[in-house]
């Protein structure tokens, strides 16, 4: 049943991918400005310009350009960066690992700590703890990452000297960025876990579980947690896509390379191939995230498995 569901879910990705590729391809053309302007030396002639445009195929019909582009994508050829003059694949391969380690660690941090905090606050139900949790969640969901990053740098790097101020060398340089990104995630996951657990506790079947003589601990672990995890999985799945691209400001503050920084720089220079490749990676990550989330949910909930087949 779960295999069938996964297969159907994969089929659904085909039209989604197509639409995404069209949007990604078109979106850069909607922006004002073009990369040739960045390449031309001041005082170049119109012929120079026309020659450059022809070299990158920008003079052809948009639809033709799209098919050339998508064909290249399928062959794994991301083309050459117009402004940076390097293969796009190299640029992506260079930046991707940084994004993956930072995003992946932040994801792990926010999901484990968030679920633990959410569970504790739902189970303990202590007024002081409750107020603390609510304050923490409010801060976590509202404090902007770049500002928190600066505060952390000021305190831990400048005053205490525990971690490097910026850069991407060694694990110590990862601690503060992971904390910065993870903080918001912890708050979000904790909130969702808490609410989901409290909701699950109010379900009718919980009364009957108690009436069977099961202990509260067993009920929590074997029955309430699976229910509470369903919405948590949804949130986490959405954040998987976020791993790659959500860290732009934090990358910037900590001076780390990454897909987000690459994208922002390429956007500024209208470097179409790079922008398109970055957007494609991000879109893939989001699609992969929701796919993983949906399959995980289906494996937990028999009702979902049956609904969509």
């Amino acid at each position, binding site marked *: 049943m779960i295999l069938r569901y996964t297969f159907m879910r994969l089929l659904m990705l085909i039209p989604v991918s197509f639409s995404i590729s069209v949007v990604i391809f078109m979106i850069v053309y909607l922006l004002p400005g073009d990369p040739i302007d960045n390449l031309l030396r001041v005082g170049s002639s119109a012929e120079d310009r026309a020659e450059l445009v022809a070299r990158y195929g920008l003079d052809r019909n948009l639809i033709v350009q799209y098919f050339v582009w998508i064909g290249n994508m399928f062959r794994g050829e991301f083309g050459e960066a117009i402004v940076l003059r390097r293969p796009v694949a190299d640029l992506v391969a260079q930046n991707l690992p940084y994004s993956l380690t930072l995003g992946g660690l932040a994801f792990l941090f926010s999901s484990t700590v968030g679920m633990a905090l959410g569970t504790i606050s739902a189970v303990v139900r202590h007024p002081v703890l409750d107020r603390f949790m609510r304050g923490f969640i409010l801060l976590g969901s509202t404090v902007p990452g770049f500002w928190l990053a600066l505060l952390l740098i000021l305190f831990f790097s400048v005053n205490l000297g525990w971690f490097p101020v910026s850069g991407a060398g060694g694990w110590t340089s990862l601690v503060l960025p992971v904390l910065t990104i993870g903080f918001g995630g912890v708050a979000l996951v904790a909130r969702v876990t808490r609410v989901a657990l409290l909701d699950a506790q109010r379900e*009718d079947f919980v009364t*009957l579980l*108690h009436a*069977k*003589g099961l*202990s509260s601990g067993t009920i929590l672990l074997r029955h309430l947690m*699976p229910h509470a995890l369903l919405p948590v999985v949804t949130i986490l799945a959405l954040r998987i896509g976020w791993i790659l691209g959500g860290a732009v400001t934090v990358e910037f503050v900590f001076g780390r390379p990454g897909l987000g920084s690459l994208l922002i720089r390429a956007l500024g220079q209208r470097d179409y191939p790079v922008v398109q490749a970055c957007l494609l990676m991000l879109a893939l990550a989001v699609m992969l995230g929701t796919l993983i989330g949906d399959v995980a949910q289906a494996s937990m*909930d*028999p*009702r979902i498995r049956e609904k969509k087949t």
Partner: protein
Amino acid sequence: MLSVRDLGVAFGAVEPLSGVSFSVDKGETIGIVGESGSGKSLTAMSVMGLLPLIGGRITGGTIVFDGQDLTKLPERAYRKLRGGKIGLITQNPMTSLDPLKKIGPQVDDVARLHLGMNANEARARTEEILGTLRIPEPALICDRYPHQMSGGMKQRIVIAMALAADPDVLIADEPTTALDVTVQAQIIRLLDDLVKQRDLALVLITHDMSVVAQTCDKVVVMYAGRAVEYGPVEAIFDRPRHPYTQALIACIPRGLDDTARLTGIEGTVPTVINYPKGCPFHPRCPRAEAICATDPPTFSVEGDSAAACHFAEVAHAQPA
């Protein structure tokens, strides 16, 4: 077997239940009747020791089961009784099973917990019980999820869970309210058979007087968190002395000709914070007098039955 005396329940400062008493023996069925909001389900929760779950606590009285007072029983010992000696059947079978778990394991839990069986023994017992509840192909059902079954079938599963550890007392809280009429009769008959076959003591909570008439030996009529009349079923139906009981009996539909009309009781049960002074029923009572609004009535005992009405002595003379 089970004897409740003067039970009172409070949520914070409000006391939605007070002075409820009844008792059941093996092989006996007691009906607890009343409209929604009269405190029937709270009574069930109290006996199960599950009040803390909904934020309530017992303020007075005793619940004696098998010689021990359950109101003083520590939680750990209570857990052995729940599902072990006292089984509960809840109101809405559509939501009483964990939707993420298969039927088999949900029923197996009870035998594993209370009878110390391993997984295989428990499954064998589950299938046996499902068989006695006239569920076709028990092995197949064990491998199903709750949403794949009908309401009547789910209620049988809930009953199977309540029976799995061979309890002495079964508490059925409106076991048929959420079911189709045809299935209702089947479930009631099933419960009735179980009481006889297994020598169970059954506490049947319902708002349906006709169900009480069919299955119960004794009945407690509740109104606004209080028992207003109790006694053997024949006596109560022959000579109902409380106007509320009379009204409930009058509500049973009878006859099929066009002249037969459905009767109801004017008004609604007051909410906990609006419990009236004096007799709780007086605002809706057809024969209320000045005294009813000021003085709470005491029980007027007659044989095995009693009614809490100022006019209990004369009430039965004038059928409602």
